[in-house]
């Protein structure tokens, strides 16, 4: 396998940031997302482990900041039982925003009928949509009785790791089917700005990173045929239409695949026929399906054990 890639976020000025991109290309790293905001730019990238110091030196020279972002390359579903407007601002908004600062791509999913205790339920469509992500983070409220006894029925049919956030301090074991519980982030009707709240969010990012690491380890046991970023690069090279997609992350990287934000009907054949220098085409090493999110394309990469080789 090629060099080990480390995820980093660069925050700095727009001026001369092209130098970083050039260096990254020379080193064989990948740019996952570039977010320009006025005169500032945020670059989310994967840098070869050995060459991090080179990028670090250049970013110091450009007066920018290079920080490690353990959540890069993950797509997390932040699920809230309700996203009703009269409860705005939702704490789930802050949760999603904070995960994004760690480098993750988050999608907020408000369940149509997730509120309440006895009446809470999730639809088949919603479950399938959540299952397309790497991790599902359920943002619950204040009462331990609800979190322990009533809300876990929303986890039924969720096959990906489940992280739960809520107000009270509960042990993960007490919540049926949850893989991790993070307390101190319950329902609040204001933006999370106070110190204990921010501490809770920091702890959340740390714990979710641990969860991501464990999923990565799991994948490493039977590695993916190709790295998701490699497919991203090939899509950018072989399907020029991706440049015209206006969403913030036209190609969203997941731990074991990616979401391409092009219409499925028009582009799925092109995506399936993407060629690699090593020989195979994409449809031989990955499953290309229609995403439940809008009409996007979802690619899930096969494992070494299924295909028999790694490129």
């Amino acid at each position, binding site marked *: 396998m090629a060099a080990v890639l480390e995820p980093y976020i660069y925050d700095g000025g727009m001026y001369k940031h092209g130098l970083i991109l050039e260096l990254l290309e020379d080193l064989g790293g990948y740019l996952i997302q570039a977010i320009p905001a006025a005169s500032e730019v945020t670059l989310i990238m994967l840098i070869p482990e050995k060459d991090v110091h080179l990028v670090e030196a250049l970013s110091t020279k450009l007066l920018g900041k290079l920080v490690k972002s353990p959540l890069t390359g993950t797509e997390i579903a932040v699920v809230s*039982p*309700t996203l*009703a407007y*009269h*409860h705005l601002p939702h704490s789930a908004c802050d949760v999603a925003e904070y995960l994004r600062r760690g480098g993750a791509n988050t999608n907020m999913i408000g369940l149509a009928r997730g*509120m*309440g*205790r*006895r*009446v*809470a339920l999730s639809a088949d469509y919603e479950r399938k949509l959540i299952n397309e992500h790497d991790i599902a983070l359920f943002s619950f*409220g*204040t*009462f*331990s*009785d*609800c979190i322990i006894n009533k809300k876990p029925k929303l986890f039924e049919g969720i096959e990906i790791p489940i992280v739960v956030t809520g*107000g*009270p301090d509960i042990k993960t074991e007490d919540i049926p089917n949850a893989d991790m519980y993070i307390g101190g982030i*319950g*329902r*609040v*009707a*204001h933006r999370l700005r106070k110190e204990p709240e921010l501490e809770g969010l920091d702890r959340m990012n740390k714990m979710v990173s641990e969860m991501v690491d464990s999923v990565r380890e799991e994948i490493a046991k039977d590695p993916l045929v190709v790295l998701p970023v490699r497919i991203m690069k090939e899509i950018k090279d072989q399907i020029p239409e991706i440049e015209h997609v206006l969403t913030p992350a036209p190609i969203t990287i997941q731990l074991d695949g990616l979401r391409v934000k092009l219409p499925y009907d028009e582009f799925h054949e092109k995506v399936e026929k993407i060629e690699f220098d090593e020989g195979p085409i994409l449809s031989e090493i990955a499953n290309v399906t229609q995403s439940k999110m809008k009409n996007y394309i979802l690619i899930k990469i096969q494992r070494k054990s299924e295909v028999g080789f790694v490129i």
Partner: protein
Amino acid sequence: MSTLDTFVVESTIAEEADHYKQIVSDAITDLVLVRSINKIKVVVTPEETLFQMVIVLRGGLAPIKISDFAQVGVGTFGESEVVIDIENEAYLPQLLESLWARCGRINVHQPERKTVSVSCENPLEEVPLIEEMVVEDPQRTLQARLVDMAIRATPEGFRVRYHSLNGNHFIFVATEDVMKKEWVEQAHKMLDELLGGEPSGSSS
């Protein structure tokens, strides 16, 4: 929140009650109800899927008449108009709305920032009528905000609701199951306790 005489939130677990107090307090702040509420008590019983809230409002919010914030007089000689000199601009939008509704938009002019004139046939007769016009009823907007606050503070899924607003006494009970009579009675008792033994009157 210091201006509230009583602000109690109770639940099965005390820590969770403290947390919920923050939610109620945010709802009160967002809707600028701090000065309108005198006492408030909330009891949340998650095990029974029950939310009860009683509020005692501060009374004495009289309707605002034009004479409360403006001088009304007859215009200059020869002009058939009523001139309103405004002292407090806070009610200007409501004033214009009510004048437009009453006299027609074409007859209402605002030559200056703090002057509004109304063309009419008999200014002398109109002056006392305009002076007595009610432009804003704080009690009514308060009620609307109070209901909004109750809905914001309630857990989202609790869609079966009972409410009663009797003068300055507001009772709100919400659940997701069939509403039990004793829950409503309990809430009425809570109000009595909050009032310190005074009867809460009949519910509407």
